[in-house]
């Protein structure tokens, strides 16, 4: 017995020694970033590591609930996490986040924290501001229900996160299906002109019928209904699908589900959905096995970008997404957990992304809408980073690159249109409603409702 204890002790000491030796090998600081899959340009990781002489490790989780569980349990001390807005609310309420120190963000100008926050707020797209204001109001309501102090005037919740990408939800459809003739008009340059063309109207877009068409509304005349053999896909995250149904139903998607549960059940049982999926939906449409599906706009653009890189012009891509004039919007946003170890480095990363050139570079790989107005401008003006100042993220301007930049611009312009960009107005043409946090019991009711429909 004594012998084995001795052995164990020696083993333990050896382990200790070797671990100190091994940790000596890496004096570089390490930023632990918990992100979604395929949500950062891999080259950008290298750029950041070189610029700040550190390691950037990107871990992946595939749901907001998982983000929350990982932060709450605290087994790994992540320095940055990228949850969506409703999960930020929940993390904030449960006191898991620390406030961003805007004084550490040198890319912003201003002498006080508040001035710098204002400076940041002035630089982001109105679509994001819309979501931030919604969050702020929502927190005020929650603070009254749950009884905690909340500084509404200061927009307190928005001092705890920094938007990474944002976007809307829409209906992705297969352009080869005759029902969805793409009647968008383009000028001779291939530039998108209008959603409302002359001649035969697009049934999806006519009178903003998109939701009615998708959810089989019987008030539509028969010729405007999707044919019965249309292959329709539904999003299997109940929180998001409920949002879509309520947007169609013209009810608030963010209040308790009890009042609307019966309507929800009735609406989703109207048709047999060919597929309930997540990421599989966009692949289904791209391979023509689905005709229409409710999905993230950015998911569709991911596929569109791949098609453009294959050499297809935007108007020749065989699928696209339509964003109804009132839809759900989301923002994925960077937060620093309370138990983060490298808070300074996390701020460095935020600062890094505030540089429009690096943000632009990151955005090339990801189909969501940029947060910064300056990045949006770069895409719309088909600009590139300056070759001398930013040699690392400059891309050689050959024929392919010019083709890509042109079609990228057309895609962004068409999918995330703003009112009057030329005159400096960035207000979204569409209205996006963000999600707020739901109780577990509500999610359970929705899940059961969906499962009952699937099994009926």
């Amino acid at each position, binding site marked *: 017995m004594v012998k084995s204890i001795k052995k164990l002790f020696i083993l333990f000491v050896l382990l200790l020694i070797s671990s100190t030796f091994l940790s000596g090998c890496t004096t570089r600081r390490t930023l632990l970033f918990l992100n979604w899959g395929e949500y950062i340009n891999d080259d950008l990781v290298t750029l950041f590591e070189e610029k700040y002489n550190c390691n950037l490790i990107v871990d992946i989780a595939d749901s907001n609930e998982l983000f*929350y569980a990982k932060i709450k349990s605290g087994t790994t001390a992540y320095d940055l996490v990228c949850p969506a807005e409703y999960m930020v609310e929940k993390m904030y309420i449960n006191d898991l986040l620390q406030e961003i120190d805007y004084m550490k963000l040198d890319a912003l100008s201003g002498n006080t924290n508040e001035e710098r926050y204002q400076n940041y707020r002035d630089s982001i797209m109105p679509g994001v501001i819309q979501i931030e204001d919604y969050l702020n109001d929502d927190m005020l309501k929650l603070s009254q229900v749950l009884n905690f102090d909340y500084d509404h005037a200061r927009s307190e919740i928005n001092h705890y996160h920094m938007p990474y990408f944002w976007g809307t939800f829409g209906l992705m459809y297969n352009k080869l299906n005759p029902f969805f003739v793409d009647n968008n008009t383009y000028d001779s340059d291939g530039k998108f002109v209008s959603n409302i063309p002359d001649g035969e109207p697009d049934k999806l877009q006519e009178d903003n019928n998109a939701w009615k068409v998708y959810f089989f509304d019987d008030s539509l005349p028969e010729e405007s209904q999707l044919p019965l053999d249309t292959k329709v896909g539904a999003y*299997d995250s109940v929180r998001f699908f409920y949002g879509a149904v309520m947007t169609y139903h013209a009810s608030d998607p963010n209040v308790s589900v009890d009042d609307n549960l019966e309507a929800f059940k009735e609406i989703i049982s109207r048709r047999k959905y*060919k597929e309930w999926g997540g990421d599989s939906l966009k692949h289904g449409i791209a391979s023509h096995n689905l005709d229409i599906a409710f999905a993230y706009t950015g998911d569709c653009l991911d596929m569109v970008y791949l098609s453009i890189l294959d050499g297809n012009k935007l108007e020749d891509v065989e699928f696209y997404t339509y964003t109804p004039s009132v839809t759900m919007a989301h923002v994925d946003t960077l937060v620093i957990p309370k138990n983060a170890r490298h808070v300074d480095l996390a701020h460095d990363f935020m600062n890094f992304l505030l540089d429009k050139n690096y943000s632009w570079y990151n955005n090339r790989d990801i189909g969501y809408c940029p947060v910064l107005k300056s990045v949006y401008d770069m895409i719309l003006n088909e600009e590139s980073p300056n070759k001398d100042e930013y040699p690392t993220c400059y891309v050689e301007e050959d024929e392919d690159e010019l083709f890509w930049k042109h079609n990228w611009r057309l895609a962004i312009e068409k999918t995330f249109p703003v009112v009057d960009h030329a005159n400096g107005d960035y207000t979204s043409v569409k209205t996006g409603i963000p999600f707020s946090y739901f109780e*577990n019991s509500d*999610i*359970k009711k929705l899940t*059961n409702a969906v499962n*009952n429909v*699937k*099994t009926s």
Partner: protein
Amino acid sequence: MNNKFGRLAKPYIIWLYIFAVAPAIVMSFLIFTDMEGLDLANLKMTLDNFSQLGEKSTLIAFKNSFLLSVITTAISIVLGYLVAYKLFRSNFKNKFLILVILILPMWSNILLRTEALANIMESNNIVTTFLNKIFNSNITFPQLRGTYFSVVFGLVVTYVPFMIMPIYNSLEKIDRSVEEAALDLGLTEMQKFWKVILPMSSKGIITGSIMVFLPSLSGFAIPKILGSGNIVMIGNVIEELFNNMNYNIGSLLAMIILVVILFSITIVNKVDKEGEMLL
């Protein structure tokens, strides 16, 4: 001597306690509580979780699971026995090679194989794309994905090697002289098979059945991918609940499955007193 070998088993027994027994105890506790995730601060004791068992979708999910895994097991027995018997009877020298080829697909990732199968079962798939490119035609396959057939097909394809192996092993153990004796005593070839070979290989069938039935019963990836999310088995319900941080009801359903599994293994143990069936 015995004691020495007993000590060798210790690591695995400790492993078993930490990763099987302890979680089962935690889960049994979770069944009677209501909280979000593992949030002990806001823990409430409740019996409400059991109301989930009255939910129509849960019952249908249980029914689907049992029905599909029984069908899968039955088909696997027939297919597996035919293959194993053919192999057993053949004069091929390197039977080991054949067995290796049989389990060759298992060297690739199961999700990858299932996704590939799902692609082939779509009306527009990799084959039609290829053919349409060459012949400039417009061929489509029948749409199989999303049906019960596709799920059963996927389960059989995935788990049939687990059936072939034990059956083949038990066939190999049959003494040739027993067969000769049966023929000497006047049985025809057919009678010999039904009265001698089949009963003597029943151990393999039962072991194989357990190894096919249990993963089919509790799995969720294959029905999710091949059923296009439309075919709900109990594994899918449990996965969904855990994803939504509803560990309480998830534990309840998972424990029910665990009880079913333990129950079926007990039955087999009762029937097979010498403990020879579970090779």
